[in-house]
């Protein structure tokens, strides 16, 4: 069985495309793919930065066609995505294994070292296990990816400093405020990105928050989840008066937070510093606010820039992480080869046993030996066969643990004519 990974991420597709195939609940799609005749196993990983489908298949070509069609037509997009192939990448076997490990270890993230992707990968795996679409191959692959991610996290300093956009926000907040306890946050929007960012701030001790959204029902759902109050956008001026941190990520073609709005509240805000994170594209907050005293405005590019600066400083750590991934990938490849070696060794031994038994029967039938001597004859020939096979079997088992072991397996199959159906009928 082969492993095939097809997907798109922040490097290959813009957010307008990525968001159209973002999947919140993978269960129905996993069920659909699981019953495809060309797909044996399937796991679906979907985050705001990537959507990837990983399958175990006996026919890579057929699975590839199926997955391309699936992404273009069956994903949650309102209409089929034209030219989806332009955004897709694919990896097979060893490359797919390495890629998944890089993803789980956050080396393939928009911001290297961000911790969320490890949890998202585990969630994707758990969903596939629950849906019954994850078999032994992908299961082993994911377990190894988690091991690699854990090693990267503990053996390198990649995750030591905060790096995700959300965490850069938390870090900046701690440069402005001594503590987030007692601080009030205002969230404008109720999407996943803002939820993640706010969870990071919550984790840092933020005590009070208000969610303002165009659709108040969505604000209520998020407020309930995070423990805050829900409001409509019309309440922004009053909410702004009390806010120490504003986090905005809402779809809009004009700023929802303007200089005029802030100016109107600045008196009541009493010169307290206000930290504004604008994650929206187009921007949600009037850039002029950045010029005001005590207003610290950061948009997504500013946060990304800081995060990337941190990424640059951790180049050496990234190289070490890549080494770890290569080690784990080779180990996993060895396991795959060994998995393929088992049937070869079994078939070879069965073939030799069949020949040995047949030759004993033939010798007895030709009266060369007395039937009473069969047991002795059996022991002698078995001993001879075992001695002859010991070295090649040991070599095959040992080499199968390595990536190059496939060549030995191929050689054994040719030399012992394992794949030749007629060989067993040949006579001396």
């Amino acid at each position, binding site marked *: 069985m082969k492993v095939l990974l097809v997907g798109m991420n922040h490097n290959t597709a813009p957010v307008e495309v990525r968001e159209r195939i973002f999947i919140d609940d993978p269960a129905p799609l996993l069920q659909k793919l699981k019953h495809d005749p060309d797909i044996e196993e399937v796991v679906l990983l979907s985050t705001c930065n990537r959507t990837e489908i990983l399958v175990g298949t006996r026919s890579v070509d057929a699975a590839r066609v199926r997955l391309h069609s699936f992404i273009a037509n069956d994903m949650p997009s309102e209409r089929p995505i034209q030219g989806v192939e332009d955004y897709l990448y694919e990896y097979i076997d060893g490359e797919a294994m390495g890629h998944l490990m890089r993803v789980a270890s956050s080396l393939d993230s928009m911001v290297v070292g961000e911790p969320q992707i490890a949890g998202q990968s585990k969630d994707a795996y758990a969903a596939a296990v629950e849906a019954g679409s994850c078999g032994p191959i992908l299961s082993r692959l994911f377990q190894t990816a988690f091991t690699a991610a854990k090693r990267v996290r503990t053996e390198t300093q990649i995750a030591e400093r*905060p790096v995700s956009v959300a965490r850069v926000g938390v870090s900046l907040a701690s440069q*402005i*405020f*001594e503590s987030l306890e007692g601080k009030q946050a205002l969230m404008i929007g109720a999407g996943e990105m803002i939820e993640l960012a706010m969870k990071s701030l919550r984790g840092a001790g933020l005590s009070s928050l208000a969610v303002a959204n165009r659709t108040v029902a969505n604000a209520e759902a998020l407020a309930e989840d995070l423990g805050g109050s829900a409001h409509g956008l019309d309440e922004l001026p009053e909410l702004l008066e009390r806010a120490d941190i504003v986090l905005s990520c809402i779809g809009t073609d004009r700023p929802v937070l303007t200089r005029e709005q802030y100016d109107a509240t600045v008196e009541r805000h*009493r*010169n307290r510093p206000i930290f504004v994170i604008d994650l929206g594209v187009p921007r949600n907050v009037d850039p002029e606010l950045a010029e005001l*005293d005590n207003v610290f405005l950061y948009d997504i590019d500013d946060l990304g*820039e*800081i995060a990337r600066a941190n990424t640059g400083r951790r180049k050496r750590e990234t190289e070490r992480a890549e080494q770890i991934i290569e080690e784990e990938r080779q180990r996993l490849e060895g396991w795959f080869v060994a998995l393929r070696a088992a049937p070869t060794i079994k078939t070879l031994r069965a073939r030799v046993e069949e020949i040995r038994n047949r030759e004993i029967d033939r010798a007895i039938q030709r009266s060369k030996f007395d039937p009473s001597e069969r047991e002795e004859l059996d022991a002698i020939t078995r001993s001879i066969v075992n001695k002859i096979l010991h070295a090649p079997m040991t070599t095959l088992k040992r080499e199968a643990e390595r990536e190059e072991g496939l060549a030995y397996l191929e050689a054994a199959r040719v030399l012992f004519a394992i794949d030749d159906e007629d060989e067993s009928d040949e006579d001396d």
Partner: protein
Amino acid sequence: MITMLDQLAAAIYLTALLVAALAYALPRPVLLRVSVGFLVLGAVVHLATFSLFHTADPPIPLTDLPAAISFMCWIAVVFSLILMSRVRLEALILLVAPIAFLGTFFAALQMGNPAPATTQGSGSWPHVHVLLGGAGLALLGVSGLAGILFVIEYRNLKNRRLVERTVRLPSLEALDQVNRVSLLLGFPLITLGVVSGMLWLSSVHDSFWTGSLHETFSLMAWMVYAILLGARFALGQSARRAAVSAVAGFLFLFFSVVVVEVIA
């Protein structure tokens, strides 16, 4: 003995500075804690120096300028340590320690040659004046140093030039709190320093005012701080402006009290 202890305190302050600089350069947060430890040790040795002033022959008066500067440095160190125990403010060592080192070191050089006493017949007012005024100057000095850190960090945050640091600088909020507390404690102290100075003059010259340079500049500095206090707490001055004012105010105060005293 006193000079030796003063030099030892200066050496410990210098060590605290070097260790703190290493903590940020390497970066190693643990070194910052070691640096705080050195600062505490320096303050203890420094205090021991003052306790031996009366044993010198002749006894060293606190009104002697080197001794007064040394005292102000000690107050600044102790006040900084108290603040550090409350908020993340260890970066202040980078500014407090060199000043404490310089003040203590030069005080040690001068301590063997005290200036002729000018306080005879004036009771305890000179000491009260130096104690209160010196403490106020030290506290407002810490406010100025925190103001420098505030301005640096504020500019970095505004210009989005921040990179993640393993050893973090103080938050703007903490630095602003230092500004508030220092101003609230320091201003009454320099006010009492000015009042006790006038009482000292009165006991010697039968007048609260002789029109000396020191008196004129000290009064001007006091008025500057009175304006800063009003701007900060009555007019709701922003934290950035308060930080800039704290730096400018302290420079003027230092010039008025110390530089003018040396020139005079």
